[in-house]
């Protein structure tokens, strides 16, 4: 597998400004990010999905996400699935209120003191799901839990936004079109380290090792009509990658 940044869990809070429940989701998410599970989580910015946040979209494609919604409209869960990938977990505040017998929160800009235990309860539920997801094996290609077998949790890095999650996106220009390919660099690095090489002076796509395109397809949804374009783009990138390596090695 190509080397990608350590797994973390992305938290997408609805943050709805019109209702107290939205404020609760935002504060609970921040509590998890800053206090309860700071090394295991990042926040994913919901509006960035539409505004072109490639980092956020890429993160949610590769790593598990928890959508936290303040109401049954489930904006965070539905938008995450619409623009990136189905969240691993969807939490709706109403369910937490019902399960724990808590009063509905009050206040928009400032929650009432009586509402603060709701933030704590929701943060506790989110943290529990973070632990469960970090302990399980996760399929990046399928975007789902493989099983509940425990694996080593990531312990490095810092709390932050998914837009700086580090999943590389390469852009290759072919025939006047720019193709964005996720995780291309680590895929090429992996292939190179496995001993594969580009044929010098050969730009025919036949020289592209099939394993490279297999890996690219694993991490990118390539429309069938664009398959040839992507293959050519990867071929160009592979030629340049190998040439740069050879140059560095003298």
């Amino acid at each position, binding site marked *: 597998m190509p080397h990608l940044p350590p797994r973390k869990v992305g938290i997408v809070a609805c943050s709805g400004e*019109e209702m107290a429940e939205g404020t609760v989701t935002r504060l609970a998410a921040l509590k998890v990010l800053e206090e309860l599970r700071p090394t295991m989580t*990042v*926040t994913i910015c919901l*509006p960035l999905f539409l505004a072109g946040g490639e980092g956020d979209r890429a993160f949610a494609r590769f790593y598990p996400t928890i959508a936290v919604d303040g109401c049954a*409209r489930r*904006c*965070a869960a539905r*938008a995450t699935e619409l623009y990136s990938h189905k969240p691993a977990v969807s939490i709706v505040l109403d369910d937490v209120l019902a399960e724990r017998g808590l009063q509905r929160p009050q206040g928009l800009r400032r929650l009432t003191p009586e509402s603060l235990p709701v933030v704590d309860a929701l943060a506790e539920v989110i943290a529990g799901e973070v632990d469960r997801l970090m302990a399980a094996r996760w399929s990046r290609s399928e975007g789902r839990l493989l099983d509940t077998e425990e694996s080593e949790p990531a312990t490095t890095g810092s709390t932050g936004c998914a837009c700086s999650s580090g999943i590389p996106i390469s852009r290759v220009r072919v025939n006047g079109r720019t193709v964005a390919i996720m995780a291309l660099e680590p895929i090429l690095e992996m292939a190179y380290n496995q001993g594969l090489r580009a044929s010098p002076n050969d730009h025919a796509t036949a020289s592209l090792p099939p394993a490279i395109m297999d890996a690219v397809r694993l991490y990118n949804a390539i429309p069938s009509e664009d398959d040839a374009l992507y293959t050519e783009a990867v071929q160009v990138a592979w030629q340049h990658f190998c040439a740069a390596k050879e140059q560095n090695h003298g």
Partner: protein
Amino acid sequence: MSIVIVPCSGIGKTYGTVTREAAYRVVEELCPGETEIVPLSLLVLGDPEAQARVRNNTAVITLDGCKLACATVNVGQAGGTVTRAFTVLDCYRRHKDMKPQGIAELNAGGLALAQALAAEVAQAVAEIEKAEAS
């Protein structure tokens, strides 16, 4: 009809919190009854009611926390027209003494900056209303 205010809604950075605080100050304190907040999350999802509110209202004012301008972009994607677009960074450049810090809770500088931004937005609300009345 109310003037719609759309803050950026980001939760991971201080500037997002400043836009939200400024929006609340406009709607609750400076221009109550004249303005309303439309949550960005509803626009992202394509909620028909939220989309209608940014399309049909008299004016839309966006408050963005960074250069990605999520609020402005999402209002455009929803079919609305942004009447005035504000960014925290521009406001901060005018008020360098108000350095914002904190996310869940803003520091004094952040609250002051939110108040300054809210005042600029309230001024824009007054100008828009004046233009519509004439």
